[in-house]
Every structure is written in structure tokens, then in C-alpha cells.
């Protein structure tokens, strides 16, 4: 341990203030706090179109229990949701509705594409006249999970992946750069 530490580089004395690349201690710490809050409180929109919605419900159920991560506050109204889990096929008629729901959500908002249908049209990708071949034609997607339908564990994994993604966001730093 001791040897490794000395090999890392020149020693610094405690309390030394560095010029950081990210714009200072205060901003980075604030970003950390904001990201911590946002990543740990992802409230999903109650949105399920088909089979994947049942696995989403299983994830909410007692065995898989997404409430452990604070996801259980599923909101029925898009105004209060942070996350839209697109669980199931999106067809041409549903696409404008999905777009509107996404627009109604306040920033910051995230999207998980759950299942093969939302990635590429899934088992309905050919010779159908009504299926949107991938939900990313309609709204931007943060995390994709394959599966038809994905297991609840896969959904949890995708949500944790999203949490990690949020933890690397730099909200204040961007603000400061905008000002500069």
C-alpha cells in the first residue's frame, strides 16, 4: 500500500488546492450531489404496451422488488416522471402518443428501451405494416435491454446502468461553460 502510494506521483500536502480540469471543487461537488439525487430517485412512468410490461410488473413485485433502489414510485402522469421504460412494441399509431408523452415530461428525462421490439421491431420486424422498427426512431434512448421479454433482473441491470450514466453527468459544469 505504502509503496504504491508513493509511486503514484509527487506528494501533495494536505489542504492544497488544485486547479482542476472540471472547473473547481465546488462545482464538481455540487454536480456529485445532484447526480446522487437524480440517479437514486428515478420515478418511472406507468407505461407498458405489451408483454414487457408484465415483466416490468414482475420487477415491481415482491421477488425482484425495484423499490430497493427507490424506483417504486411509478407515476401515472408524465409530469412527475423522470424515466420512461418503453415496455413493448410501438406501432405507427402509438408513436405520436409516445412522442407527446416524452415531450410532456420535464427535464431531466431518461428512456429505457425494454425488449427486442423497442430496439429493432423485435419479432415483428419484417412483413408488418404497422410496427415502428425501433423506438429510437421516435425518442432518444439512454439504455437498451435485449430480450423477448427481458427478465426482471435484466431490467434492474439496465436501471442500474442508467444510474451509472447519470452519475457521470456534469450539470453545473455545463452551465458554467455556457455562461463563459
Amino acid at each position, binding site marked *: 500500500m505504502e509503496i504504491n502510494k508513493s509511486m503514484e506521483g509527487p506528494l501533495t500536502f494536505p489542504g492544497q488546492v488544485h486547479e482542476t480540469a472540471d472547473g473547481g471543487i465546488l462545482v464538481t461537488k455540487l454536480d456529485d450531489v445532484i447526480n446522487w439525487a437524480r440517479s437514486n430517485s428515478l420515478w418511472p412512468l406507468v407505461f407498458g404496451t405489451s408483454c414487457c410490461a408484465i415483466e416490468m410488473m414482475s420487477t415491481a413485485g415482491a421477488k425482484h422488488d425495484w423499490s430497493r433502489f*427507490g424506483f417504486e414510485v411509478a407515476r401515472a402522469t408524465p409530469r412527475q416522471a423522470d424515466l420512461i421504460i418503453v415496455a413493448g412494441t410501438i406501432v405507427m399509431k402509438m408513436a405520436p402518443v409516445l412522442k407527446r408523452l416524452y415531450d410532456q415530461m420535464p427535464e431531466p428525462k431518461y428512456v429505457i428501451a425494454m425488449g427486442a421490439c423497442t430496439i429493432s421491431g423485435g419479432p415483428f420486424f419484417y412483413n408488418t405494416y404497422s410496427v415502428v422498427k425501433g423506438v429510437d426512431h421516435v425518442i432518444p434512448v439512454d439504455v437498451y435491454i435485449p430480450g423477448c421479454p427481458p427478465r426482471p433482473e435484466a431490467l434492474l441491470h439496465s436501471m442500474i446502468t442508467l444510474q451509472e450514466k447519470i452519475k457521470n453527468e456534469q450539470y453545473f459544469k455545463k452551465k458554467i461553460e455556457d455562461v463563459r
Partner: protein
Amino acid sequence: MRILLTYSFSSFANYIHHLLAELITNPMLLHVTEMVILGVSLIAFLVVLCFFLGYMERKVAAFMEIRLGPNRVGPKGSMQIVADTLKLLLKEGLTPDSADKFLFNLAPVIMVIASMMVIAPIAFAKDFQLYDINIGVLYVSAVSSLGVIGILMAGWSSNNKYSLLGAMRSGAQIVSYELSVGLSLISIVVLSGSLSLGDIVRSQENGWWIIKGHIPVMISFVIFVIASTAEINRAPFDMAEAEQELTGGFHTEYAGMKFAMFLLSEYINLFMVSAIAATLFLGGWMPFHIGGLDGFNHIMDFIPSSVWFFSKTFLIIFIIMQFRWTFPRLRVDQLLTLEWKYLLPISMINVILVTIMAIMGWHF
């Protein structure tokens, strides 16, 4: 040990008062400073309380639903609500284009203020009361029904039919249930002979009203808990929100911080209602006393009065939370039927019974 027994918040308040009096000589300024300190600490207390209640609700729900509940953020998930609140504060505060902007933004503020105002006459511990107003019961019942204005405002100004339906439901509901709440409060006023909450607590020195007042007071206690659950819009009486029917009810269009304020007022209301129930029926901060058994009463006095108050309050909160996670929601006409056909006649008859009991001196 002697100090512990006689310890009360009044000495602490006096200490701060003297400390400030030395620093600030102008009596007007002193008064204002004290008020500001009081206000800030009160709001801080209520917010912390709501954090706790939110956490408690998640955990009670998890307990009822055989699952774990939040356990990742902070020890045992206790920071979950902090994260939620922080996130809501930082979220974009949307105001819909077609909404009435002034009323839309005013509504959550009114809700929070109305629910916070109820705190004034409540005695949290022995000699710890903001203002023992002599018409405390009247004040409580008057102020607690102010919240409906906020709900109606929110529902109307959102320019959303779901919101409007929710607000209309809520208006009818709160006006109706106010009657039963009032009548069940009156039964205690009749017995104790005072409207002041401090006097009511002191009148329970030789036993809580729910024990002293036999069955009639128990009936009014049950009616109070049911009716006040309805008054604060919690399931199974959450007609104003009714997620499965109206998606979000009156707060469908609210996002971010304004929505957080609705949540805040919901939890403050929950606490206030339970605190009033505990004060009137279960003796507030008064320890469990049995008239005549001095030795027993003395032992009970060893438990601090604030512990008594909060344990009673949280017991009632726990019961109301259990309602929420167990019962199906009533339909809107059944809700009004329950009030006008059952609760109101029963509580009217009950008031007469209590009055007869009080006149004849049949209670302990």
C-alpha cells in the same frame, strides 16, 4: 433524576429568550428575531418530519406488501426521501401554457401554508406549545379545511379535465367530512369543558378520554380517524388523486418543486390529524395515568412527555398508513353516502350521548 422529571421546553425557551434579550435591546426587534427563529425552526422541523414520514410510508408499504422497501441509499435506505426531494427541487418546474399561471403557482403554496398553520395550538410536550389559543379546537377545525381551496385552485387552474374532476370530488368530500370531524371534536369539548388544547390535555390527568369516556368517546375516536383520513385525501378516500381513475387528480399537471409541495402538505396534514387525534382522545403528551393509583402514575411520569406524544401520534399515523395500503378505494357516491347516511347521523346521536354522560357525570 429530579431535573429530568421537571425538565420542560419552557426552560430552554426562556434560556434563549434571555440570551437574545442581552444581545438585542429593542423589544420590537427582539420579538421579530424570536419569531423568525421560531418560524425557521418550525419549517425545518416539519420538513424533517416529512422526510421521516415519507420514509416511514415507504417502509410500511413494503412491510404490508412483503417486500424490502428502499435499502440502497444511505443506511437502510433512510436517505431515499432526501434524494427524492432534492431531485424534485432540481427538476424542471413546468407550468402548462394554457394554465392560469398565477393560480397554478399559488395553489401549492396555499396547501402548504394551510397545513402548516394547524401546528400552532398543538402541544408537543409538557409546556411546549406555540400558542395555547383559547379556542384551539375551533381554530384547528377552521384552518384544516383551508386546504381544499388549494386543491380547488390547483384543479381549476390546470386546465385539465382530470384535474378539474379531482378538485370537484375533493371539494364535495372535504366539505362533507368536515361535519363529522367537527362533531367528534365536540364530544371531547363537551367532556373537558374547554376549547383550549392545553386545557383538554390537562383534563386527562387522571386518564385519557378514550378510557374515561366509555363507548361514546371510542365511537367518536373511530369516526374522527375515518373522517379525518377522508379530509386529508388519503386512500381509501383519495378521490381527488385516484390514480387508477384520474391519473393524478388535481396534481396531474404539477411537476418538480410544486409537486413536492403537495407531497409536503400531504404529510404535514397526516401528522397534524394524528396529532390532534392523539391530543384529544389519547391524552396528548399526558402519560398513561389511572386515577387514584399514584404510584403507577409516578412511574409513568418517568417517560418524557414528548415520547408519549410522538408515540401516540405515530401509532395513529401507522394505522392510517395501513388503511392506505390495504383497502380498495370507495366510489365517489359511496363516499358521500358513507358520510351523510352513516357517519353524520351516528356522530350526531353520539354527541347527545356524550352530553348526557357529561351532565350526569357518568364518566370517570
